[in-house]
């Protein structure tokens, strides 16, 4: 038995290693274009930006492990950003509560998704689509109808862009904490075990006495909360919240989780892989944008690279 190996080594399965390999390959290729791609500033800058996607991908991974998907990311991110800045407008009390309030609102949206999916049994693919539309409607109404304050607090700005220790971005620490928590939850807690069990077969999990519906609802709540937290960070980063701030994050989040080796049908995947996937996607996007390739070429390369990487390591076992 392989009991003697530490857990995290055995968890580094083939897709995860391959994903990290791709990161290194990408950096090497990039360095042919400009040596700046290997500079610490550039890499730290990428990690800082990756932190936003990292938070969202964490929530996305939870629901993908359940065999579901969360398409409400774009506007829940916006809800997080706009609600936190709105709270900041309610005097000194509001400023302190801004961050938790934003996250709480995101959890609220996640709760709605969770109820619809876990209890009303609407497929997540479509219910979260509806929640996204409702969130957009609410934010349009809120901005247009109530003229909220949308300036980020200093604390938000500091967390999102500040660099306290060794010029490591604070945002990266936040992602680090979330990542550590995610790894712990997924590997060491009953909640994590239940997520994998439900993702594999919800019926059997239910008959094993797991609170499957509650777990599912909580996972969506967490996903909503994490999306909103990313929205809070983004608002801090831009010092303000604005409509559509979450738009560029949905598909990259799904892609990151899948590139990290998580099975899109649920039940299998490790968080280390998701970390690799997030970094991979962030680097890819950034390099394509810096290399002055036009949008058409960027899209072609972006899609092509994802397919190519998955063909290398993401293939399913042959059925039958």
């Amino acid at each position, binding site marked *: 038995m392989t009991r003697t190996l530490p857990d995290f080594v055995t968890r580094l399965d083939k897709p995860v290693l391959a994903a990290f390999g791709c990161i290194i390959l990408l950096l090497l290729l990039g360095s042919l274009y400009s040596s700046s791609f290997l500079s610490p500033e550039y890499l730290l800058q990428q990690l800082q930006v990756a932190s936003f996607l990292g938070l969202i991908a964490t929530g996305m991974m939870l629901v993908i492990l359940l065999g579901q998907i969360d398409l409400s990311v774009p506007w829940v991110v916006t809800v997080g950003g706009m609600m936190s800045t709105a709270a900041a407008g309610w005097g000194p009390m509001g400023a302190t509560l801004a961050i938790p309030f934003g996250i709480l609102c995101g959890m609220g949206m996640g709760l709605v998704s969770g109820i619809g999916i876990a209890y009303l049994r609407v497929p997540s693919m479509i219910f979260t689509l509806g929640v996204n539309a*409702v969130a957009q*409607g609410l934010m349009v109404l809120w901005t247009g109808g109530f003229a909220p304050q949308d300036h980020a607090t200093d604390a938000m700005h500091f967390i999102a862009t500040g660099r306290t220790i060794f010029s490591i971005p604070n945002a990266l620490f936040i992602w680090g904490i979330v990542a550590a928590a995610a790894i712990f939850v997924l590997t060491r807690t009953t909640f994590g075990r239940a997520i994998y069990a439900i993702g594999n077969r919800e019926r059997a999990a239910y008959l094993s006495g797991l609170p499957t519906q509650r777990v599912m609802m909580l996972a969506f709540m967490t996903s909503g909360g994490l999306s909103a937290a990313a929205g809070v960070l983004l608002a801090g980063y831009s010092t303000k919240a604005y409509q559509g701030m979450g738009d560029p994050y949905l598909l990259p989040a799904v892609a990151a989780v899948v590139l990290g080796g998580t099975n899109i049908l649920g039940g299998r995947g490790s968080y280390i892989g998701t970390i690799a996937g997030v970094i991979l996607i962030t680097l890819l996007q950034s390099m394509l944008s810096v290399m002055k390739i036009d949008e058409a070429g960027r899209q072609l390369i972006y899609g092509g690279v994802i397919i190519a990487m998955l063909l290398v390591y993401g293939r399913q076992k042959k059925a039958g």
Partner: protein
Amino acid sequence: MGDFRYWLAEHKGTLLAFAVFVIMFGVYTGNHSAGFSSMVVMTAANKGVLLALVAMAQTLVVLTAGIDLSVGMIFVLANCLASQMVVGDAGETTLGVICVLGAGVLCGALNGAIVIYGRLQPIVTTLATGAMFYGVALWLRPVPGGDVNSDLADALTDQVYGVPTALLVLLGIVLVIWVPLRRSEVGRAIYAIGSSEPAAYMSGVSIDKARFTAYAVSGLLSACGGLMLTFITYSGEASSSIGGSYTLNSIAAVVIGGVSLFGGAGSAVGAIFGAFVLRTIGDLLFVFDFDPLWQPLFQGVILLGAVTLGSLRLLRLKNRLDLFG
């Protein structure tokens, strides 16, 4: 009588979507200041047929228990291509139409090939190929514009004897593509693999052929949609937001139309009515006087309500295991 019961069970989803559509459209035209006039119907038809075609495309892939996140992008790509090729005299126009449809088949075939031979999950595959198709569309048409054979375009977006031609086109596509497919062995295989792939394999069903056909025909139908969009707009535009919104709406349409997202059950005809239902939700904004800032919320809530309608079955649920399919 006994047979009728089984027929009804098979078409329940489609009939329900049809009924919902009739009621909603009734409410819409009933409150429209132009009433149930041919102009109103034609406008609704032109708009509805586009989504209906993309929803049909989505249906085929969903029936195989997959999901196609690239249908909207194929739609956009076809639109851009058509705005360059479907011009000139009759011969050139025909050639252009064939090229556009061929490109759609090619895109679908690429998806199918990657899913089958690359053994990647459909959702991820099409997420990535969708970006690529969009890239090609943008390369073809960096800025909106182009042209189309306006005689053909006018003919296909007008009406004959009060019936919108777009609806006739849709009917033709259903009769020429969907009905034969549904009744063929390949079509049945598409249902079979969606329902249970291991069982289909054990039963000697040609799985790869069926799946490939599903994706290729899906591409064809998306391209038909893109072609119709060109006829309606006389132009092409590489818009990722249009692609994205058609993709997502096609999924919603498929669900409202009674097609199971788990595969194996449902009909493209249901998806068509699902698409019409979705379109009518948007139309309701005309006849009810909503504050403009409330409109997006209204649409979101109605969408959420429509997709939650199916949950009413839970009220009759006796065995909780049925929750888990």
